[in-house]
């Protein structure tokens, strides 16, 4: 008995496809490397060149209000969107009848197709005036909470409005992803819970949610990534000031990095452009940190995630 291993057959199709797939993967890495190199190279003159009027107290004191604003707006958006997305996903996967679930699925996916400029216009013209009376009520009755304190904006263009617009923008991605996760719950677990006498809600609590938790977190991180980079809607809706402010109902709100770049870049000249790109580099770093954290959380329950 000889133990010659038969050589695997490789035809032209295998070779071509393997190489195409390899180059596709490499090109993504190359693009990322190019963008990172651009950010670093263009940021350097901001630190080594002559002092810039806008950042007269140094780079850190210039960028910190924007970092705060970016994270704060995204967290508010995420806090509103996550329960909504989980609710929509649960409804579509476990409660609605098949026909209506499809319609609802299409409607939620359609929200993702709306351009962010349109969200900005809708925010200024419809949402802000609509929410203004609610903000006044919140300020009068719950003004002792620092978040709702301060002089309420007359036009409603506040951090809370921006948070709601961001929530609506990240909702489709999160809902679609979480819906898929919930549909993947092992039928055996669900049936077992029901067989033991659990009601529908108890079954969901025992079988669906624990299974879906890493998926919910990864969807939330994806939504957070989208919210962190959102530019036009924030630039149009928010009334910004260069301060760090926790109050969500006032006119002086911390701007986000991306919106600041969109507002200042057209008239910026010389070093100021480099300063703005340096803030873009900071945003890149924040997004990388968020993604790494998300991957770590998911890796703890690796067997339930397709991302590994």
């Amino acid at each position, binding site marked *: 008995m000889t133990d010659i291993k038969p050589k695997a057959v490789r035809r032209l199709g295998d070779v071509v496809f393997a190489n195409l797939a390899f180059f596709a993967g490499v090109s993504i890495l190359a693009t990322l490397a190019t963008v990172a190199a651009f950010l670093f190279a263009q940021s350097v003159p901001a630190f080594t060149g002559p002092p810039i009027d806008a950042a007269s107290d140094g780079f850190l004191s210039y960028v910190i209000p924007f970092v705060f604003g970016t994270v704060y707006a995204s967290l508010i958006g995420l806090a509103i969107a996550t329960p909504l997305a989980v609710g929509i996903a649960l409804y579509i996967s476990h409660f609605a009848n098949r026909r209506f679930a499809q319609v609802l699925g299409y409607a939620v996916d359609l929200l993702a197709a709306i351009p962010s400029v349109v969200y900005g216009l809708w925010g200024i013209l419809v949402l*802000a005036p609509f929410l203004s009376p609610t903000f006044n009520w919140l300020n009068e009755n719950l003004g002792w909470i620092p978040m709702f304190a301060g002089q309420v904006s007359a036009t409603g263009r506040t951090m809370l409005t921006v948070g709601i617009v961001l929530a609506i923008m990240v909702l489709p991605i999160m809902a679609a992803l979480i819906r898929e996760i919930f549909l993947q719950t092992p039928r055996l677990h669900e049936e077992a819970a029901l067989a033991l006498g659990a009601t529908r809600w108890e079954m969901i609590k025992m079988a669906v949610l624990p299974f879906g938790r890493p998926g919910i977190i990864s969807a939330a991180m994806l939504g957070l990534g989208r919210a962190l980079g959102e530019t036009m809607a924030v630039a149009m809706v*928010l009334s910004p000031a260069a301060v760090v402010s926790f109050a969500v109902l006032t006119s002086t709100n911390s701007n986000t990095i991306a919106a600041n770049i969109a507002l200042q870049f057209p008239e910026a000249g010389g070093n100021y452009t480099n300063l703005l790109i340096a803030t873009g580099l900071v945003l890149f770093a924040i997004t990388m940190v968020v993604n790494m954290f998300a991957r770590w959380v998911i890796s703890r329950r690796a067997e339930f995630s397709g991302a590994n």
Partner: protein
Amino acid sequence: MNNILKLGALAAVSTLVLAGCAANEDVAETPTSAAETPTEAVVELAGTLNGSGASSMAAGQEAWIAGFQIANPGVTVNYDPTGSGTGRAQFMTGATSFTGSDSYWKDEELLEAFPSCVAGTMPWEFPIWISPIAVIFNLDGVSSLNMDGATVAGIFAGEITMWNDAAIAAVNPDVALPDLAITAVHRSDESGTSKNFTDYLSAVAGDTWTVGAIEAWPAEFGGEGAKGTSGVVSAVTGGNGTIGYADASRAGDLGTVAVKVGTDYVSYSAEAAAAVVDASPLVEGRESYDLATNIDRNTTASGAYPIVLVSYLMGCNDYMDDAQAELVRAWASYLVSEEGQNAAAATAGNAPISAGLRAKAQVIIDAIK
């Protein structure tokens, strides 16, 4: 079926190929023949003219390009609204033949080389675009209010916070001012409009408005920030008791402020805006072909409205390429002409330049070679 497809493909391909032989394609290639035939009664201009610069006059440039190209079908004019700083920089690299800018040449820029111009010669400039900045507000039933410079500065600096404040009520005795908080709206993006408005505030009320002419609003003055002229207008329209500043052509039917000039209160208008440019002194130490003007915000000339944004047209006195000189002369003449200024005003809402300024500018244009 196959034959039909073949026939259809042949028809499509031949259409595309024959379209390339269209007669209107070779006009751009002919060099300007005007310079060689000075005895012809009608000079046919041809060529391409490139310019870039201020975005404040972008709408006006579109109207001018349309009008000029209809009158001179052989010429193609391109204007890229990159921003004033970029426009001047591009002119200094020789990429463009003319530029539009919200601010006049700085002394240190004039010391640099200008590759489009013959070595040793300087560029000319004169105001071409006068855009009044209206102070707009939204108060039920009130369409006009009188205010002096110190009051306006106090409102935007956050010191005057209520509409029925004594300072406003004193000069508006026949207006019923409500007990409502003032919300001052400013531009959240850097802009020439902000710069000119704050220049006015620091000139007329330097002790209230302490930060000078700025493009980025200081946080301690409060107020709302909105993106772009349309953002400010929609913020003022959408709120009650809001006040802001924006290009006058977009003021719509919002209430406007008549500012104190001398002893009168002057509302914005095209004539009033052009009047302040004429009443303002030229910058010291410049040549006769440089009409850089320091707008006198404290002017007491009657009927002048001091809150204006003035943009300049700039070009070479002596072009390296004589054909370009020909085109720039015709282009600039059209821009300063009454016909050109009115055409821009009809679409973009700027204030046409006065006859006096037109005459001075034409002298400079005629000297271009």
